[in-house]
């Protein structure tokens, strides 16, 4: 079992829809969680960075962490074609800062 599981998709939704992207993790020692967005031919770009359980909001993006069920989510409201990208979740292992990555979900927003 991978330490961070993520459905690779692709996930295709119409413009304006609410998008839900999800990851599960197995290691209860994970404390921090990140969501990165990666456009084609670009490096990963940090979207959200959360520590505790609960929600963190930034514009149209909301990151949610449920440590009891080891489940993390990224919600995108009012999705736009420009949101089409691959979204990767990640968590650092212990104190050595090595990131454990999900497989990445390819998101397609249809105009």
């Amino acid at each position, binding site marked *: 079992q991978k330490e961070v599981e993520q459905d690779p998709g692709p996930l295709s939704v119409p413009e304006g829809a609410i998008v839900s992207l999800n990851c599960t993790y197995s290691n209860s020692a994970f404390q*921090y969680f*990140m969501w*990165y967005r990666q456009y084609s*031919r*670009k*490096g*990963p*770009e*940090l979207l959200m*960075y959360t520590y505790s359980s609960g929600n963190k909001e930034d514009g149209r993006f909301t990151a949610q962490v449920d440590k009891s069920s080891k489940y993390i989510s990224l919600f995108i409201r009012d999705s736009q074609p420009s949101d089409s990208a691959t979204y*990767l979740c990640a968590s650092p292992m212990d104190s050595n*800062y*090595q*990131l454990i*990555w*999900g*497989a*990445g979900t390819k998101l397609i927003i249809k105009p």
Partner: protein
Amino acid sequence: SAVISQKPSRDICQRGTSLTIQCQVDSQVTMMFWYRQQPGQSLTLIATANQGSEATYESGFVIDKFPISRPNLTFSTLTVSNLSPEDSSIYLCSAMTDSNQPQHFGDGTRLSIL
């Protein structure tokens, strides 16, 4: 957040040659990392570039194949040696400004081997 520049952005190399990739950060950072990413896949950590000491390599990656330099707090290089078609990939550099901050990435180097 730190701005990370990688050069070259892409290259096509002959088998048996080497390619050195440069990573420049616009501010001093504590840690720099090198990753490999196959198209459509997630990232695999190659090594952590330590300033003033040898890089720390992950399982499956060795210094002879992937020598790394980090001469100061803003710059690192990764060399991919004795290139073979299996080395065709995207190589990414990342950096952390300090231990409480997340990693930020450059746009990567796309390497193809003829």
